[in-house]
C-alpha cells in the first residue's frame, strides 16, 4: 500500500474533485461533497482496490486521508 496511490483512489471516490487536489492531510468530512454517497464510494474503493473490509465505525474514527491509510495498512498486515 502506497499513500500517494491511496490519495488518488480516494479522489476517485469523491465526485467533482480534480486529480491532485487532495492530500494526505485532507480532512475529508470537511469537503463540501461529503455525503453518504462518498462514504459508500470509500468503502467500495477499499474493498475493490485493497481487499480490506472498512467498517463505518472505523471510518468514523478517521479525520484525515492519512489516518484512514494508517488504519487500513494496519489491517492489511
Amino acid at each position: 500500500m502506497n499513500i500517494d496511490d491511496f490519495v488518488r483512489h480516494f479522489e476517485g471516490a469523491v465526485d467533482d474533485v480534480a486529480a491532485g487536489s487532495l492530500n494526505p492531510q485532507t480532512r475529508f468530512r470537511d469537503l463540501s461533497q461529503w455525503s453518504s454517497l462518498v462514504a459508500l464510494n470509500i468503502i467500495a474503493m477499499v474493498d475493490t482496490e485493497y481487499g480490506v473490509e472498512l467498517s463505518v465505525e472505523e471510518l468514523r474514527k478517521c479525520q484525515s486521508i492519512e489516518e484512514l491509510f494508517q488504519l487500513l495498512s494496519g489491517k492489511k498486515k
Partner: protein
Amino acid sequence: MKAAIKAISYYLPPRIETNLEISREFPEWSADKIAEKTGIFERHIADEGVCASDMGAESAKLLFTEHGIDPHDVDFILFCTQSPDYFLPTTACLLQDRLGIPQTAGALDFNLGCSGYVYGLALAAGLVETRQARSVLLITAETYSKFISPEDKTVRSLFGDAAAATLVAASETGSVGPFVFGTDGRGGEHLIVKTGGLRHRQAAAGKAAVVDEFGNVRRDNCLYMNGPEILVFTLRIVPQVVASLRQKSGLTEDQVDHYIFHQANKYMLDLLRKKLKIPPEKFCEHLAGCGNTVSSTIPIALYHSLKAGRIRESNRVMLVGFGVGLSWAGCMIQL
C-alpha cells in the same frame, strides 16, 4: 418428492414517480445523477388507501388468470410484508376471504423485507415436502413509500411499491433448495421505522428531525437507512452465502447458470457482480422501471428473466436476498 416454483405473477400500482419529479425537490440531485447512482428511472407508488394487501390480492388474481390456476386449489397462504393492514387480524386471513380460497386453507403473515422471498420459498417448500400442504400461494407485498419522508432523497430514489404472487407445489422436474440462512440483529437499527410498533407507539412529542453524520435527515416515524452500514454488511455476507450455497449444492462457479440477487440498487449489484467475478450474462439486473421493491425484487426479476428466455427449464439459478433485519437467505432453484 420435491417442491418447486410453478408460476409467478406480479403487480405494480399505476402511479409512477420519475427521477425528474424527485430532482425538482433536490437541486443538486439531478435526474441523470439519480439514474447513474441507482440504476432506477421510475418507481411505482401505491395511492393513499391502497395497502400491501390490496396489491397482494391483485398479484394473486394475475397469477390465477395468467397461469390458469384455480384459487380453490390453494391450500396455504404465506403473506410476506412489513406493511400489514392491522396488528391483528393477520392480513393473510383477510386475503383468504378476498381471493375465494377455501376455508380449509392455512394462512399466515411473516415479517421480512429483502430476504423475504427466499424465506418464503423455504417455508413453502417445507410445507409441500412434508405433505402438510399441496399448493402454497406465497405473496410478497410492500408499501415502503408510506414510511418514507419526502425529505429523504436517498430512500425516495431507491424504493418502489409492488406485490408478487408465486405458486409452490410438488414438481417432477423442478426444485427449490438447498437453502442458507443468516441473521444479525446488531444491524437492526441500520434499516428501521422506529415508531408505530409497540416499542415506541408514537414519536416523542416535539422531537425534531435529526441530521446524521452523512447529512441525511432522520425522523423516528419514517424509514431510516444507513447506506454505508448496509453496504459493508452486503459486501461481507453475500460472497459467504454464494460460496456456502455452491458448496452445499456441490456446484462449481461454472455450473451455476444464473444469479438473481435482491435488486437493492445498481451500485451495489455492480459491486457484487465484480467482486464475485460473475459474467454479466449470468447476472440479473432488473430495477430500472420499478426500483427496489423489497421482498418482491427477486420474483419480479425471475419473472422477467424467464420471459426473456435468459433462464430456461433445468437451469440452476441462485437466489440471494439480504437486507433489513439484518437478515439474509439464499437458495438454488430449478424450474
